[in-house]
């Protein structure tokens, strides 16, 4: 009774004070999340035919403003701060990851907003909606006719073709969730951020205009498995709270370092936590959703997901391992060794058997996840900076790869079966050249960002005593090179099929996205120093 009275008394005495907010430090995050809310309002209040231009402009503006505020803050070389009631840690890796996410958001947004590659944009919510659009938007009595015409008549007659514009608030919310995810200083914030980033992604996956069943299957699969992953994560949080009495990362580390308690709760908690995180990062054996979702989701969404989710997931994994479990690394590292080897092997070997370009890139991403895990396991400044750089490099290459994939089409939509890519170089030498360059970057050949990134991660891993893993990783790279090479062989050395796909001449948006991806891939391969310096500016803190 006494204790209860005390609590009441304490509550009465100290009115709950609002947590201190370092507004300038978290401004990019606030801008993105606030922008997302306004984007929802735009969706609600504007007439349908005005939404697309306004939403695109607004989303672009939000990202640019967030980037400017981030740059303004980061250029002052700030000290790491922990703010918002110690729930967010804005340190140097956070700033780098925020920058990476926002920069990757630009090409992703451009591809999502594009309406030239798939007439009318790649998204439509339901079959009924599509049928309704056949008879003309707003009941204006269009007669339909060809399906392309039907798609174009969605909106007011005479207007530019329109698409499902809920995509834009989804993108902004997902981006905001990812930014919070990588900055989270405690596990509860991290969990909420995980949900904020995941839910829009689940929805986005199911919105493909073509091959709707595949797309919806992907969405359901992603949602169900993702929900499992989140549940594991939450259970892990609970166990860790039971062990340390706190969900704050630094306090878990402190509890683990200074205690003689049984470690069972700690490592069971870590294991469950990691299941949730590795799921997001599509690391084998938690990868099974990846090929299906990559294949089924609309390609611009796949690009966004492949690049940004990877950044967010590995940013969070690196932070958790570095801040909360750095002191106990010798206990858990063996397990992660096994997972990294498995991921590299699964990605490289199963990638060999794929016949669909998008599935192939999915398996490649699983192999890359294994490589990334090497960097996150090295609890050293080099490991952190290598991982961060790898994420930046991989993200841009991947976005551009999916951009190119979205261009190769036949009457059925995207022609993603490998056999349809035969002889592409003859039809479109530029697209084939760009794709070759990007694939060589994924394979990690010198003078591309892929090589620099691999070098950064592997040298960090080697100097932290992981020589066998590095050798395995390099062998896996050689195996993976085979399936990248197979695409190049098909494009250049095979004769094109008579009724093969055509290469769409992309509009300005997709062109800009691919160009950006290629330029960054090249630049980070030749002159990586500024990015490396920024990535190495400081360690995780919390």
């Amino acid at each position, binding site marked *: 009774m006494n204790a209860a009275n005390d609590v009441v008394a304490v509550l009465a005495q100290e009115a709950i004070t609002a947590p201190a907010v370092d507004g300038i430090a978290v401004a990019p995050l606030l801008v993105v999340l606030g922008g997302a809310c306004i984007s929802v309002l735009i969706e609600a209040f504007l007439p349908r035919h005005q939404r697309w231009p306004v939403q695109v402009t607004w989303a672009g503006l939000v990202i640019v403003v967030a980037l400017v505020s981030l740059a303004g803050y980061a250029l002052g070389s700030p000290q790491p701060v922990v703010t918002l009631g110690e729930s967010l840690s804005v340190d140097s890796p956070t700033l780098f990851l925020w920058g990476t996410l926002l920069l990757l958001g630009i090409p992703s947004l451009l591809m999502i907003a594009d309406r030239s590659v798939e007439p009318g944009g790649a998204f439509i919510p339901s079959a009924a909606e599509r049928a309704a659009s056949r008879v003309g938007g707003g009941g204006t009595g269009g007669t339909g006719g060809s399906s392309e015409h039907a798609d174009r008549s969605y909106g007011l007659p005479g207007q530019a073709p329109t698409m499902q514009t809920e995509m834009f608030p989804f993108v902004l919310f997902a981006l905001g969730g990812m930014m919070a995810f990588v900055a989270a200083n405690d596990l509860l914030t991290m969990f909420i951020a995980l949900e904020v980033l995941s839910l829009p992604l689940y929805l986005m996956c199911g919105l493909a205009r073509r091959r709707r069943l595949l797309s919806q299957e992907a969405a359901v699969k992603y949602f169900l498995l993702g929900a499992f992953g989140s549940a594991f994560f939450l259970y892990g949080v609970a166990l860790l709270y039971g062990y340390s009495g706190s969900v704050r990362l630094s306090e878990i580390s402190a509890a683990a370092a200074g205690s003689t308690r049984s470690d069972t709760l700690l490592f069971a908690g870590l294991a469950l936590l990691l299941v949730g995180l590795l799921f997001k990062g599509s690391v084998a054996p938690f990868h099974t959703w990846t090929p299906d979702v990559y294949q089924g989701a609309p390609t611009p969404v796949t690009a966004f997901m492949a690049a940004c989710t990877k950044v967010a997931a590995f940013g969070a994994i690196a932070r958790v391992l570095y801040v909360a479990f750095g002191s106990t690394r010798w206990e858990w590292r063996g397990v992660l060794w096994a997972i990294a080897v498995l991921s590299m092997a699964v990605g490289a070997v199963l990638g060999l058997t794929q016949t669909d370009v998008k599935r192939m890139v999915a398996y490649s991403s699983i192999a890359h996840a294994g490589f990334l895990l090497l960097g996150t396991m090295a609890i050293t400044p080099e490991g952190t900076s290598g991982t961060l750089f790898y994420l930046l490099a991989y993200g841009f290459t991947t976005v551009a790869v999916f951009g190119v994939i979205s261009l190769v089409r036949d009457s059925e939509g995207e022609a993603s079966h490998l056999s349809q890519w035969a002889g592409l170089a003859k039809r479109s030498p530029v697209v084939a050249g760009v794709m070759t360059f990007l694939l*060589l970057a994924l394979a990690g050949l010198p003078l591309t960002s892929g090589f620099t990134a691999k070098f950064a991660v592997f040298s960090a891993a080697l100097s932290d005593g992981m*020589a066998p893993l*590095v050798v395995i990783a390099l062998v896996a790279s050689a195996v993976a090179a085979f399936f990248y090479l197979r695409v190049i062989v098909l494009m250049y050395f095979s004769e094109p099929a008579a009724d093969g796909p055509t290469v769409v001449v992309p509009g300005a948006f997709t062109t800009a996205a691919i160009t950006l991806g290629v330029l960054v891939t090249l630049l980070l391969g030749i002159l990586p*120093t500024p990015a490396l310096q920024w990535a190495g500016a400081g360690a995780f803190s919390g």
Partner: protein
Amino acid sequence: MNVLSAAGPIVPDSGGNVLLIVLLLLPLVGSLVMYPLRGNVALAKGVAMAVALLELVLVVLAWVGYDTAAAADGTRFQLEFSASWIPAFGTHIAFGVDGIALVMIALTAFLVPILMLFAWAEKLPEGRTASGYFGLLLATQAMLVGVFAATDVFLFYVFFEAMLIPMYFLIGRFGGPNRQYAAVKFFLYSLLGGLIMLASLIGLFVVSGERLGQGTFTWAELQTMAATVPTSTQIWLFLGFFVAFAIKAPLFPFHTWLPDAGAEAPIVGAVLLVGVLDKVATFGFLRYCLPLFPAASQALAPLVLTLAVVGIIYAALLAVGQTDMSRFVSYTSIAHFGFIALGIFAFSSQAFAGATLYMVNHGLSTGMLFLMVGMLITRGGSRKIADYGGVAKLAPLLAGCLLVAGMSSLALPGTNSFVSEFLVLVGSFPNAPVFTIVATVGIIFAALYVLWFYQRTMQGPVRGDAVTAALERAGAGGPGAMTDPGIAAKRAGTGFADLGRREIAVVTPLIVAIVVLGFFPAPLLDVINPSVTATMQEVGLADPVPVGGTAR
């Protein structure tokens, strides 16, 4: 930092001589220019040839500018350039040549115009243009200059991997019927080797970070550190480099890609591949394996020598049994690479000098052999040895040139290869007598395979499907015709024609080089010798046969 150096190596990041960069960029720009010129094939060829000749002139300038006296006084590299590249990885854009690198760059620059002349009127696969063909040749040349001139290990690795790409497209787009398979096999083998080397490279970086306080890739700094690295570490690092080079060379158990690639590549690609690109491996042994891992090199030398000698005998036997001319030449090369590896891992400066000279001579003689085979294939349209016979009657000049190339390949005294093979054997004997004796047997096999090949294709009555078909096409009649086919061929003017003017222009510089270097190798050896002496000092062993006694 380099104890051998009086003047000291170049200060990192201080710029320096840009000649080597120009040598690198000129063919690279030339290859890029080929793309806009693809509509105008004649102009593209002209530009490509002009670029190749200009490159040759610049290489001559570099050769003249190379000071052998300074090299003998201990200046390890000349024409040096250094600029910072990625400070986080301790890498530099650093170029410089020693005598070994210089002769290899010169060999490349010498061969490329000849190859272009050979390819001038070549019939390409459908849908391919000569501008792409010549562009890839120039791009390969640029990468080769980079790989030989790099004095930063990281930069070397970059070019080592990058040179795969133009060669891959050269084989895959312009090669024979089975070119896709050969191109992919070539690329994957090399890439696997390269990635294993990358592991060692990273290891080297980490070790240098521990030993020098700051990770570096500068060759000279790594070399000063080399002696203090424990042997066990050295062996791991050595193995990474060694596997990459053994695949590239190729040495015996890693050689299976070469016959495929050599046979399916277009002739000019095969010459560049076998003549120069594979020499990167033997060059790498001399420049990287030995000086950077001296203890490991000595510890593992018996292994390498065994592989080398097995390769000499085994490849020679396989060469005897080949039915495809390009594969035949490829197998002879594998045998020759065995000799080069023998010279390198026998640890005497005379054997080093012989091995280096062998690299040049092998480029010339095998290059010429490939070209002659290519000319034969152009006429007969078949790669099979059995499809040819008695060609000497129809095309005596062609047969004569083939004989010169063959004699050079089997190291007949008076040809260039004899000097190098002799130097290798003499230099290797003190340290590796048994291996040397076994290798000498390889010379006999060489005579066997070359002479038998010559006899089957050139001597005897005119026969073989390809020859008769060619004659029938021209209306000259086959062996059964009333007139003597040789006379008929002359009378009809074509059929199985002898060397044309362009082809004579192709072979003349090669024959001159083969004969002149056979009698007067001194200009090359003068450039090579100071650098191999320096390499010997870096290995840190007593020199059983110093280069002073080389044949002049």
